[in-house]
């Protein structure tokens, strides 16, 4: 399915801080970072995903485009098991997500094992979903402390480094509500990175922002991409896709219609539906 290049991108030499955070955990042996095969998902009678195949190599940035309701959010949510798939398989870092394969039978993992898998995958929401009753620092340290059982000093040092990285070092003691939308989303990205995930998923991270705040969030994401973080980004920001993506995937009605390098999918789409959508967005 992956029409893009299969080479793992090199990390830019200057980007040490975040580069260090990327764990290549479980990706040895030639496995792709993310591998979806024939994924189906229905909500009642609504067949939202109709057999999605998707491969994302480590260090790559994949941008998913598609009309509203085409199943993009649902697809992202299956990648960290917030949604169970009805059929097909999801592998992250070569390991089956949410299940263990014994022979040809699948056994669902325990809650604890699923939570552990999730800590390898960061998720950034359209509506930020910061914890409003916790300070910015507490938002960043909560999961490292309770999900990864890290020592407090270590979690706080990491939080400080990440806030520095997203340009919000002075906001550690602020409550989320006192920040602008762009600042809140940068905190949310830092919170996702605090788990030092191997993969970060973004679901329309700039769609809830005023236009003048979109740029600062995209800058942080570009910086992350340059540092070699594996990212899957659902967005309508064509400029971002063109500049940053290794692969652009176009989805419609629960299927991947086409995918490939940005220049090909954005400028010379093979399918009529892709062409119509890109024409509308640009």
């Amino acid at each position, binding site marked *: 399915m992956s029409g893009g290049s299969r080479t793992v991108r090199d990390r830019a030499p200057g980007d040490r801080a975040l580069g260090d955070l990327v764990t290549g955990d479980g990706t040895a042996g030639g496995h792709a970072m993310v591998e979806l095969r024939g994924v189906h998902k229905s909500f009642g009678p609504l067949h939202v995903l109709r057999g999605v195949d998707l491969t994302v190599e480590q260090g790559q940035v994949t941008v998913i485009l598609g009309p509203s309701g085409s199943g993009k959010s649902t697809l992202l949510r299956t990648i*960290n098991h*917030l949604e169970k798939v009805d059929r097909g398989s999801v592998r992250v870092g070569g390991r089956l997500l949410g299940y263990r394969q014994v022979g040809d039978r699948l056994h669902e993992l325990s*809650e*604890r094992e699923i*939570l*552990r*898998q*999730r*800590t390898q*995958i960061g*998720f950034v*929401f359209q*509506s930020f*979903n*910061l*914890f*409003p*009753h*916790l*300070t910015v620092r507490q938002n960043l340290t*909560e*999961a490292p402390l*309770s*999900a*990864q059982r890290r020592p407090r000093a270590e979690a706080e040092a990491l939080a400080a480094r990440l806030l520095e990285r997203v340009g919000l070092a002075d906001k550690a003691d602020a*409550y*989320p*509500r*006192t920040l602008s939308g762009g600042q809140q989303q940068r905190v949310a990205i830092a*919170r*996702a990175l605090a*788990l030092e995930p191997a993969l970060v998923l973004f679901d329309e991270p700039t769609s809830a922002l005023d236009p003048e705040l979109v740029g600062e969030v995209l800058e942080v994401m570009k910086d992350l991409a340059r540092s070699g973080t594996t990212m899957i980004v659902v967005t309508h920001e064509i400029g971002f896709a063109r500049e940053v993506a290794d692969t652009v995937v176009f989805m419609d009605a629960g299927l991947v219609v086409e995918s490939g390098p940005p220049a090909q999918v954005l400028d010379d789409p093979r399918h009529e539906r892709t062409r119509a959508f890109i024409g509308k967005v640009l």
Partner: protein
Amino acid sequence: MVTARHPLRWVAVAGVLVLLAMAASALITNPAWEWEIVGQYLFAPSVVRSVVLTLELTVMGIVLGFALGTLLALMRLSPNRLLSSVAWGYVWLFRSVPLILQLLFWYNLALLYPRLSFGVPFGPALFDIGTMDLIGPLTAAVLGLALHQAAYAAEIVRGGLLSVDHGQREAAAALGIPRARRLLRIILPQAMRTIVPNAGNEIIGLVKGTSVVYIMALPELFYQVQVIYNRNGRVMALLLVAAIWYLILTTALSIVQYYVERYYGRGRA
């Protein structure tokens, strides 16, 4: 324009002040209120002891009531049909039966089950005790108040949990935070913003509600002043003593509620 601004408002203020002055004068100058008797009994040891008992009943009723209520709320919200039906049934039953009736029921439980035994369900008993010994008037009162309170607390806690934005659960789950921690650290503190004002009403209601246990001859505040005025005939003065104490207790609780609300409102503009 400066002088004649809001003339009606000034008329209203003057009217209210006159009414207040009349009320104060009626309270202070009418000797039938017997203020010196009020002063004499306000801090009488038996009255103070009854205030303490009222407080104890309130605290136990609220703490046990909200503990059970929270459990019921979680059961009610659980995807397990049996658990949620049992919780629904509990709330239905205990909100339907008047508290006073329930209290009498617990008090007279010995008539139904003279002995209670604890042990393996339907199996051998580990120990066995006379119902009368186990459920005295105090236990019956606490049991009744707590079970009654739990039905209301369950609805308040459930409403609070439902008021928390779904994205909060989702974000906590996506971060891999363990289930219990998600509830205690992320969801409940936010639910408290809706729970505390309603719980405050319940607590203040229960301070006064404890007065119904007088039917079990427990010497809480209301029962105690009745005992005293039956002896000395100073009905109005002693009812005033009780009213003053209820005012003091509920005022103190309102102040506590203000600070608790402020604590859980942190981070909100």
